[in-house]
C-alpha cells in the first residue's frame, strides 16, 4: 500500500486541494450569504433520512422486543413468587381471622364460666353426625371430668347433653334431636314446661302449665328441674304460636338460642353450681 501512496502522491495533493476548496467555498458562501446552501443539506438529509429511519425503527424494534420479551424473562418467576406470597398471606389472614373469632367465642364462654353456673370446661366440637341423630362429638371426655348427662352450652344458650363419654371424647345429643327434651320455664311469667326436639331446625313445646299467656317472641330458659341443665340458661325463642292444639296445648315452635348449625367451641358443665342454682345471663359474670 505504501507503494501506492508514493506512486499517487501528486493526485493526492490535487484531491486534497479540491476537497478543501469545496469545503472552504461552502463555508465562505454561508458566511457572506451569497448562496443558499440549504439544498445540499436537504439533498443529504433526503438521502440519509431513510437510513436514519431504518436505524431508528430497528432500534425501536430491538427495544420493543427487549421490553416485551427478554426483559420479562424474570417476570414469570417473580409473578409466581408473588402469587405464592399472596396465597400464603391470604391463608395467614384467614387463620388470623379465625383466631380472632375463636378468641371472641372463648372470651364469651369464659364470661359464662365466671357467671355462677358451676365448674365448666371448654371443649371443641370435632365432629358431627351426618345421619338422622342430631349429635356432635367434642374433644373432652372422662379424663377431663365430662360424664353422661353433662350439660353442654354456649354463650348463646343450651346446646345439648352428653349421652356417651369416653376417656377423651364425648358425644353430645343436641336439643333439636327428636329424642331430646329440656325442662324450661317461660322467661316472662316463669311458667314451667318441656320442649322437645323434632329432628329439624325448631323445637316443639311439649308441655306447659298454662298456655294462655304464650306469645311470639317470648324466651324459654332452662328450669333446672330436669337435673341436667342449670336453671336460667336460654333455650330458645318462640317463633310461632298456633291455636291448633296438639293434645291439650297450643302448637308452639321454638327456635334454639344457640346456633346449633355452627358449633365450634362449647362449654361443658362438669359440676353443677354449689350455692346459687339460678343463672341469669342478663346479670353478666359473677366476678367481673
Amino acid at each position, binding site marked *: 500500500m505504501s507503494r501506492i501512496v508514493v506512486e499517487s502522491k501528486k493526485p493526492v495533493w490535487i484531491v486534497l486541494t479540491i476537497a478543501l476548496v469545496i469545503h472552504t467555498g461552502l*463555508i465562505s458562501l454561508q458566511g457572506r450569504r451569497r448562496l443558499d446552501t440549504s439544498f445540499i*443539506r436537504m439533498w443529504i438529509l433526503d438521502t440519509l433520512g431513510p437510513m436514519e429511519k431504518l436505524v431508528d425503527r430497528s432500534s425501536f424494534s430491538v427495544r420493543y422486543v427487549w421490553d416485551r420479551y427478554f426483559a420479562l424473562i424474570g417476570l414469570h418467576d417473580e409473578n409466581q413468587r408473588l402469587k405464592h406470597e399472596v396465597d400464603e398471606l391470604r391463608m395467614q389472614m384467614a387463620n388470623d381471622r379465625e383466631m380472632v373469632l375463636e378468641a371472641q367465642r372463648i372470651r364469651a364462654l369464659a364470661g359464662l364460666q365466671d357467671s355462677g353456673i358451676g365448674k365448666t370446661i371448654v371443649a371443641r366440637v370435632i365432629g358431627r353426625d351426618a345421619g338422622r341423630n342430631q349429635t356432635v362429638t367434642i374433644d373432652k371426655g372422662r379424663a377431663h371430668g365430662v360424664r353422661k348427662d353433662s350439660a353442654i352450652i354456649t354463650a348463646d344458650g343450651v346446646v345439648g347433653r352428653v349421652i356417651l363419654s369416653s376417656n377423651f371424647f364425648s358425644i353430645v345429643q343436641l336439643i333439636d334431636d327428636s329424642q331430646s327434651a329440656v325442662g324450661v320455664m317461660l322467661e316472662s311469667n316463669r311458667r314451667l314446661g318441656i320442649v322437645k326436639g323434632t329432628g329439624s331446625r325448631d323445637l316443639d313445646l311439649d308441655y306447659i302449665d298454662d298456655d294462655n299467656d304464650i306469645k311470639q317472641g317470648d324466651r324459654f330458659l332452662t328450669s333446672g328441674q330436669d337435673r341436667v341443665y342449670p336453671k336460667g340458661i336460654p333455650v330458645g325463642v318462640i317463633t310461632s304460636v298456633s291455636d291448633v292444639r296438639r293434645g291439650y296445648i297450643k302448637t308452639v315452635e321454638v327456635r334454639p338460642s344457640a346456633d346449633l348449625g355452627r358449633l365450634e367451641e362449647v362449654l361443658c358443665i362438669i359440676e353443677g353450681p354449689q350455692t346459687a342454682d339460678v343463672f341469669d345471663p342478663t346479670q353478666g359474670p359473677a366476678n367481673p
Partner: protein
Amino acid sequence: MSAYSNRISGFAITGKFAISLIAVVVTQGILAFKFKFFGYIDLPLICSVYYGFTIGNPIASILMGSTLGLMQDSLSGAVLGANGLSKTLIGFFAASAGSKFAVDQPITRIFALFLFSLGDGILVTILGLMVGPAASGATYSGAVTRSLLTATFNTLLGLVLFGYRDRLSHATT
C-alpha cells in the same frame, strides 16, 4: 497491482465507506439525539482516523473524510463544510501517519486520536465562530472544555473499537 486486486481493494473501500456512513447516521441521527453522552462522541472522526490508518490509500481517506464530514454537517446543523474541511484534513493526515508510523501501537493511537479530535474540535469551533455564532451554535465559553472532553471520549472509544477491529481482522485472516 493486478485488476483483480484493484477490484478487491475497491470493494473493501466501498464496504468501509458504507460502514462509516452508517456510523454517521447512527451517531448524529439516533444516538446523539436519544443519549446525551453520545453528543461527546464523534464516530465519523474515529472512522476517518481508523480507515486513514488502515486503508493505505490517501485519496480514499480524503474522500471518505470529506464525505463523512459533509454528511455530519448536514445532519448536525453545523456550518456546512466545517466538519467536511476538518475530516478531509484528518483523513489525509491519518493516511500519511499510517504510512510513516507504527499506528498499531496503542500509544500512537492514543496520541493520534487525541490530537486529531482536539484539532477537529478547535477547527470546527473556529470556523463556526468565523461564519457566525448563530450559524454554528458555538460559543467561546465551554468550547475548549467541550473539545477536551470530546477528545478524551473519542480516544477511549477509538482505542476500544480499534482493538476490537484488529482482533476481528486477525480472526478472519
